[in-house]
């Protein structure tokens, strides 16, 4: 049973029609194969049409689709021998971030990702994909392990934000994220980051400083969620679509503003329509990026990584615009 979003109504209706036709066909009394073939063609057309023209808010909705693949779904597909490693060695094991070594077509990677839950129980277990400080510290511990054994790092970003709470503050949420930003900048191994769903603020960036930062096609990345932005700037929750537009948080906008390095395409309608295909595309892209990066010396990697982030910003100096 698929969950359809508002703007997917035409798709839903057509799928229902198609199912009815197929039922009739199955009963064997009337031959419906021509009608079915035509409707299937039409369905693809209408999908192409809808998903080509999505606005920011619609992409945000897709990025949160309840059937969308999460980090572990991708990890098990692209690195079947993945061994999960737990804990920050200080406080506990944060379930909102997973990580471990795994082999992607013969190359060992340290793979780290935010992890969301699929049902109510799982969602709570994963804290809705909102890490506490120990999650970021676990991630850093694992990245340092990768550096020690000279293995590249792949991070999968999918979080509505770092956890806001009493314990998070007591244990230094700010410090934990800050430390990751600083340490990731000087990791001696290639770092590839991919936004696979939601990229909300420091909670996303905390595992997002890489040589290549990519976004999948139906994802978003910004300093704040459209809802929170709406509530702060418009003092109401009703302007989330407007906020989503204003924030320029889509992959196209982010790439246009040179804040990410590329976009990874998804199966028609989104990764959840075909997780296996989405994983295959992701794997291919990661392999390609790694091939470019593995030629660089650690010094070059670090230099270029820092240079890239240093150039991010838009300001005027002596009235000259530099961006």
């Amino acid at each position, binding site marked *: 049973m698929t969950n359809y979003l508002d703007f997917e109504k035409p798709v839903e209706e057509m799928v229902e029609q198609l199912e009815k036709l197929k039922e009739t066909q199955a009963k064997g009394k009337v031959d419906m194969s021509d009608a079915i073939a035509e409707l299937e063609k039409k369905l693809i057309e209408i999908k192409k049409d809808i998903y080509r023209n999505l606005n920011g808010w619609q992409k945000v909705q897709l990025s949160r689709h309840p059937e969308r693949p999460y980090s572990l779904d991708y990890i098990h597909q692209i690195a079947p021998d993945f061994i999960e490693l737990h804990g920050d060695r200080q406080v506990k094991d944060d379930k909102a971030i997973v990580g471990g070594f795994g082999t992607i077509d013969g190359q060992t990677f340290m793979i780290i990702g935010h992890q969301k839950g699929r049902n109510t129980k799982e969602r709570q277990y994963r804290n809705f994909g909102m890490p506490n400080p120990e999650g970021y510290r676990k991630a850093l511990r694992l990245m340092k392990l990768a550096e020690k054994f000279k293995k590249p790092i792949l991070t999968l970003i999918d979080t509505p934000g*770092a956890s*806001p*709470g*009493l314990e*998070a*503050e*007591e*244990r*230094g*949420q*700010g*410090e934990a*994220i*800050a*430390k990751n*930003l*600083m*340490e990731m*900048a*000087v990791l001696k191994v290639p770092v590839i980051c991919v936004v696979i769903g939601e990229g909300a*603020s*420091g909670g996303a*960036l*905390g595992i*997002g*400083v890489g040589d290549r930062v990519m976004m999948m096609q139906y994802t978003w*990345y*910004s*300093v*704040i969620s459209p809802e929170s*932005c709406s509530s*702060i*700037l*418009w003092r109401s929750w009703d302007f989330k679509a407007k*906020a989503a537009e*204003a*924030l*320029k*948080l889509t992959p196209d906008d*982010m790439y246009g*503003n040179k*804040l990410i390095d590329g976009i990874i395409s998804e199966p028609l309608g989104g990764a959840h329509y075909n997780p296996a295909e989405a994983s295959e595309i992701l794997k291919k892209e990661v392999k390609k990026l790694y091939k470019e990066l593995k030629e660089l010396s650690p010094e070059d990697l670090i230099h270029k*990584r*820092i240079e890239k*982030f*240093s150039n*991010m*910003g*838009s*300001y*005027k*100096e*002596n009235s000259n*615009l530099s*961006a």
Partner: protein
Amino acid sequence: MSWFKRVADGITTKSKEKKYVPDGLWEKCPRCKTITQMSDLVENKHVCPSCSYHYKIGSHEYFNILFDEEKYKELYADIESGDPLNFTDTKPYTARIKDSQNKTGLKDALRVATGKMNGVKIVVSCMDFSFIGGSMGSVMGEKIARSIDYARENHIPLLIISKSGGARMMEAAFSLMQMAKTSAKLALLNQEGVPYLSILTDPTTGGVTASFAMLGDFNIAEPEALIGFAGPRVIKETIGKDLPKGFQSSEFLQEHGFVDFIVPRTEMKDKLSTLLKQIYSKK
């Protein structure tokens, strides 16, 4: 507390600062309601002589407090905000910037200056909360990045005085990436062995806390400042109950191990100088 003595000393020994303050100006302490003459308040580093409340001050005041004889050179003063996203909420971002510039006389929410503190050369990046809540956009990020480079290239200790509500939403992801940019620059400073003192003042929250503000070799706070990642209102809404007293205060952070020490503004200059002399005497 020995503020009586300090105030008395200040009044009798250093009167020249008073020249800059017009007579007859008074400030009422927001906490204890004590009324203090402006010149006395300046003399006491904008700390209430009666209850030690630390008035919220900006870069101008901090520079005067820290630099010898109030002498310093401002750096990168010409950098101003762009409008990369053509952002409009209830008001266009460009208009918001203009209004803030007119109201404050500042270009943006951070100024950089270099000079001597008790004879030791330092470079200071200091925020102005009066400019859109001290929010961090591309200008703040760039100026902090340059001040870090300046410290690294000249082997001069760096101070960053934070007073910020966090990210500047109107620059969205540009604002977010300033966290990565400044932290990456600090990684380079780290490798050079040049000290970085992060001064946390009221308030220091959000993206500033989750980047350079928490990355000092020394994290040093003014008393009773609000310091945190998530804002108190957000946390309160999340957990659905009132926050414990003193939560996210300087004292709370020191207790939990994230602040090296707390220093009253009246003692800040001397204590920072002592620390720098302990660790970084020029070869």
